[in-house]
């Protein structure tokens, strides 16, 4: 619970600073870079998570890794987070930042599940259609699930556009059972 609240506070602070100081592109690049570094080094994550290592030491570690590689504002932000003792939320904060960035740029993440791999033409048509419908830029994340038999399932946020054969069959089953079936 608190993880969500903490990370959204810090990430929106960073995001608003970026917009205010007109450093949006630079800081966004930094964030992607920092996330890449964190994902590439498990040790760095455990050091940041560790309550045994003192904040001062963490500060100098961060300084040594990132100094001159990222914008000074981003570095200040990293230092600030460590000073506040929230360094174990780094990854959450930056992932949230990416969400805010997508929202700002009008990009929507769509998880598409298909029974078999879509070819380029099919995915292009799907992207275009969804983009037109939502009036936003679309970023498709594919996954393959053979149990849906055919069609596709597109998940945009919490809303699901279900055009799978499996779902159609379920609806058909429900229709047949109608009248006989009851709640619980």
């Amino acid at each position: 619970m608190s993880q969500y609240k903490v990370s959204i506070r810090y990430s929106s602070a960073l995001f608003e600073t970026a917009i205010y100081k007109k450093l949006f592109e630079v800081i966004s690049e930094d964030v992607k870079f920092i996330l890449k570094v964190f994902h590439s080094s498990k040790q760095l994550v455990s050091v940041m998570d560790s309550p045994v290592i003192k904040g001062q030491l963490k500060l100098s570690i961060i300084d040594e890794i990132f100094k001159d590689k990222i914008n000074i504002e981003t570095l200040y932000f990293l230092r600030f987070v460590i000073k506040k003792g929230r360094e174990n939320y780094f990854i959450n904060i930056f992932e949230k930042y990416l969400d805010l960035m997508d929202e700002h740029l009008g990009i929507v993440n769509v998880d598409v599940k298909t029974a078999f791999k879509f070819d380029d033409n099919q995915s292009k048509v799907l992207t275009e259609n969804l983009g037109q419908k939502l009036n936003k830029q679309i970023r498709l994340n594919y996954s393959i699930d053979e149990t849906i038999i055919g069609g596709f399932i597109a998940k945009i946020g919490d809303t699901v556009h279900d055009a799978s054969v499996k779902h159609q069959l379920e609806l058909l089953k429900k229709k047949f059972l109608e009248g006989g079936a009851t709640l619980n």
Partner: protein
Amino acid sequence: MAEVRPDEISAILRKQLSGFESEADIYDVGTVLQVGDGIARVYGLSQVMMSELVEFPNDVFGMVLNLDEDSVGCVLFGESRLIKEGDTVKRTKRVASMPVGEEMLGRVITPLGVPIDGKGGITTNKFLPIERKALGVIQRAPVKEPLQTGIAAIDSMIPIGRGQRELIIGDRQTGKTAVAIDAIINQKYTHTEEAKTLGIDPVFCIYVAVGQKGSTVAQVVAKLEENGAMDYTTVISATAAEPAPLQFIAPYSGATLGEFFRDNGKHALVVYDDLSKQAVAYRELSLLLRRPPGREAYPGDVFYLHSRLLERASKLSEDLGGGSLTALPIIETQQGDVSAYIPTNVISITDGQIYLESSLFNSGVRPAINVGISVSRVGGNAQIKAMKKVAGSLKLDLAQYRALEAFAKFGSDLDTHTQKTLAKGARLVELLKQGQYVPIQVEKQVVAIYLGTNGYLDNIDIADVKRYEKEVLEFIEMKYKQVFDVIKKEKQLSDASIELIKKAADEFAVVFK
């Protein structure tokens, strides 16, 4: 032999399935983060409404009760072991609701409107949300029609009007349910042709059993059936075996069904048996939903839990059809402690209370109503004039009797006036005793109480009072039937009627032994 051609079958199939849409279906989903103890915490469902029904896998339904920043708390109406972490939850886009209609009469249903009496499905064409806002001031009218319970002590001194909320409170085994069941059985009269000609509208009844034993509910249903009361009654059952969420919503479903009758200009009586168990069920889910506990570990909104339920009982204004919903909530106290949390809350919400005491019950006063501390704050306006006339002196006589009761053991050492008051009081108490499932018509109550308060019982042995009452009423029924007819029709106790009653009583005194 009859034959069915294959192409006929396919034609039928095509026809049946013609309405089936094959377009993409759009719905909102969430993911189960945590499940257990009848509660599921769900991530996602960002557009979900408070108290919306959500669908879990395996046909388990749930209701949203908590909307947090990053998750949604749901209570489950089915078994939580059918649900796993990571399962998909679908929105249904409708708040928890139940089917309503006259088809529900005579049935035993769950709080979600599913029949459990094995008499087949119920088809109604109307759905109403289980949680509804109570009516405002403009839509209401003052309570003015009587709701006869058929229990003399109540109808005379603690009268209940249509649209009133009268609490029945007492320890276990004091006859709380019996009072409510008698009230339901007595409504049978309102469904007769005679009542129709007298302008008495029928009262439909709903009995909500919360957290009771299944066998107790079955017994109540059997008793209602035996007395022909099931024809106009619906029993909503959430027994102790059901999950807490169902017990929690059961009274609200009862209110919803009652409101259906009320809003159609009809009259309904709903019995919540009992609200202390509902509060316990609500405490259970509140604690599981991690809401902070307060006094007696109940959550902070336990007052609202009952106030919003009982506020739905109301009498509608004439413009809205003049229907009514009367509520008889029941609260069980522990060792007669009415200052516990839930009893005080409900006492303050209702328009009066009927106290039942185990000491009275054990000393043979049944119904064990303590008329000294029982009150009805609005029912007086709903009493028929004849009853009002005789009830005034009854109340006074009983109050005097209670004040002197402590001296009764001095017996013959008392002055004659005191002795007289005590004798009369004892006879009136005897007169108000009544068996279970034998409601008395209001006109008979009036005559009996008139005789009691006017000294016609004073020379009769206490042990003979009930017999005297029965026989004198039979006597009047036979010889002076017009007395009852006039009271029924004019609802007044005219001087002419009084003369007739006196005459009849004098005549009867000669033959009674």
